[in-house]
């Protein structure tokens, strides 16, 4: 049985890598209809593998499908981290914290919704939209003033956020009585808490969770990134620990009894289907790839390559780093929301800072500055270490799976010795490759003086 399991696992990992390669290839195809057909097929293949039964289980059994969802959300988190660390060069341990924020935020919205309380959606939704408006507005205003010290700017944003938060709560409380009768309760869902309406709320919950995580990262990153990034890594570690502490005390320090503090939040509707996981994963991949291959993306890379030269090229270091950090955190928030609604239960233990090294290891493993590497490593990592290894070790004894935490660092160490640039270095597949630039005929054959 063990040999069979082993071979099966290896085949599965190979199949997944082939699948990812195919997905990226088809996404990168020139013809639009091929793209669409390919994406639908990629979705359908996995969907079918979840449903078609061979013998006594589906092709991808319950355990495997769990791994697929975990890998999909890990992909989003790790891509965000790769943007911050691999592409922009800012070592961050905060990604796990933003993942947690996204998970709890999205979970709170839908949990309240199905329990007859619309304030989660209203407050977070209105808050994050107004927050974005507030941030962009203040940014415009400050850029006209010029030369405002970072900490003064931070104070404005902080006051702005408090104000926006208060306004959102007031509006949410005011509108809630009108909406909540339509929501019913957990046992008797009302018209708005089932069917298509619930799906819309789920979608909004995930997006708002991402936006909210992005806004928090803006407030946190503004002072830390502008005042020199030497301590950025430590500060982000602190951030993850603070977020974790708040989760542990969400029912005492924070006014969220439904999150149940250290006991963990239960009863989150399991709304993440493969459709949604696939959808959000593709969304993150496409957004990130388009960001990187844009003019802004090139400034992100320039900052990593050489900060001094970047400044001399007219790049605003602080705002480029901040933008990258916000986008990366947005991805983490989305990943968190997807995870929460797959697993249905959130425990602060999941968001412990030690576990926060997982996406870091994945990013380093796959290659700093390679999206393909991150995607492949997220899936490979989850399937190999969480899937294969956990089961194999599990057969050796009840405590043996803990040995994974010894094996991770060893694997990483070996990789650092053998291939320091990560498995894929900066190689990209298909869709993720930099757009081809056609060489140009010389119209401006320069005068002979510049002969090189």
């Amino acid at each position, binding site marked *: 049985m063990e040999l069979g399991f082993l071979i099966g696992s290896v085949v599965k990992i190979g199949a997944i890598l082939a699948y990812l390669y195919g997905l990226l290839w088809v996404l990168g195809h020139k013809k639009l209809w091929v793209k669409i057909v390919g994406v639908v097929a990629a979705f359908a293949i996995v969907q079918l593998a979840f449903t078609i039964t061979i013998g006594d289980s589906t092709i991808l059994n319950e355990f495997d499908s769990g791994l697929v969802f975990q890998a999909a959300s890990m992909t989003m988190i790790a891509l965000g981290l790769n943007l911050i660390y691999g592409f922009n060069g800012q070592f961050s341990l905060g990604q796990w914290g933003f993942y947690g924020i996204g998970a709890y935020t999205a979970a709170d919205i839908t949990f309240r919704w199905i329990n007859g309380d619309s304030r989660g959606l209203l407050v977070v939704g209105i808050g994050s939209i107004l927050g974005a408006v507030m941030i962009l507005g203040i940014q415009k205003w400050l850029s006209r003033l010029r030369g405002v010290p970072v900490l003064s700017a931070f104070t404005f944003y902080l006051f702005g956020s408090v104000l926006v938060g208060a306004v959102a709560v007031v509006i949410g409380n005011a509108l809630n009585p009108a909406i909540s009768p339509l929501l019913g309760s957990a046992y008797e869902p009302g018209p708005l808490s089932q069917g298509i309406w619930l799906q819309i709320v789920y979608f909004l919950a995930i997006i708002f969770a991402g936006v909210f995580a992005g806004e928090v990262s803006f407030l946190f990153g503004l002072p830390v990134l502008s005042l020199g990034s030497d301590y950025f890594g430590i500060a982000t570690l602190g951030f993850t620990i603070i977020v974790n502490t708040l989760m542990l005390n969400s029912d005492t320090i924070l006014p969220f009894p439904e999150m149940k503090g250290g006991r963990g939040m239960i009863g989150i509707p399991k709304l993440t289907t493969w459709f949604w996981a696939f959808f959000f994963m593709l969304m993150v991949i496409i957004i990130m790839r388009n960001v990187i*291959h844009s003019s802004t993306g090139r400034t992100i890379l320039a900052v990593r390559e050489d900060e001094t*030269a970047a400044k*001399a090229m007219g790049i605003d270091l602080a705002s480029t780093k901040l933008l990258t950090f916000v986008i990366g955190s947005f991805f983490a928030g989305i990943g968190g929301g997807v995870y929460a609604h797959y697993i249905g239960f959130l425990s602060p233990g999941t968001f412990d800072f030690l576990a926060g090294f997982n996406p870091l290891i994945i990013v380093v493993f796959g290659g700093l500055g390679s999206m393909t590497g991150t995607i492949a490593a997220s899936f490979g990592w989850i399937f190999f270490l969480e899937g294969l290894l956990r089961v194999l070790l599990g057969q050796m004894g009840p405590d043996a799976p803990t040995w994974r935490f010894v094996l991770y660092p060893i694997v990483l160490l070996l990789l650092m010795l053998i291939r320091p640039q990560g498995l894929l270095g900066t190689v990209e597949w298909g869709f993720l490759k930099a757009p081809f630039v056609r060489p140009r005929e010389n119209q401006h054959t320069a005068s002979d003086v510049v002969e090189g």
Partner: protein
Amino acid sequence: MMTPVNPSTPVLEVTGLAKIFGGLRAVSDFNMTIQKGELVGLIGPNGAGKTTAFNMITGLYFPTHGEIKFEGTSVVGLQPHEITRMGIGRTFQNIRLFSNLSVLDNVRIAYHFHSGYSLTDGILRNANYSKNERELTEKTQDFLSIFHLNKFEGEIAKNLPYGQQRRLEIARALACNPHLLLLDEPAAGMNPKEITELMDLIHFIREKFDLTILLIEHQMRLVMDICEKITVLDFGEVIARGTPVEIQNNPKVVEAYLGKGAANVA
């Protein structure tokens, strides 16, 4: 800058500039005025404070004292990127390319603040993105061909031969569309043939881009050949200024370079 500049306003006017690192006076009481179109050399022995002066002009260092006016506007206290956007471009003594990016991208980066499309356009890949990105790429390719770098456009910058790296750094600085170009030892590490090519290149870009140039250089052949005016710095202080001929015959300069007593021998 959008505002038209009065032709009599000096491009660069530095007065009483000083930089003190701890107890070290790297630059003290540095004065310099550069008119539009001039090609000025800044020379001096190692550690004289030349690079430090550049770093203050470009905003990398905040001056301890003094004033720097670019086209009549003070740039002291501005961020380096703001100064670049006003029109001061520079290269570095030890080449600072974006080593792992392609030659094309090294120059394309320069266009980021007038790329013509926003990040949102980039994410949505709309028509505005495609049009501007294509234009920007073609502009870069044309630009590279002026410098005979077009055949390297897909190459990773760090793989270029040394001389081409210097050339690329100059091209990249020019892509920011500067009015004043600061070159920090552009000939460092070059052989005589490459130096001759560099001199031609400097003449060429000066005409082509209507530039005012300030350059630091240890290669006396280059400085004496192409600069119209020279300022000599020693221990952070200006010890001489004048035409190349005046500088060559200035006993103080000879002394600074060769040590006391040498002036009499020469």
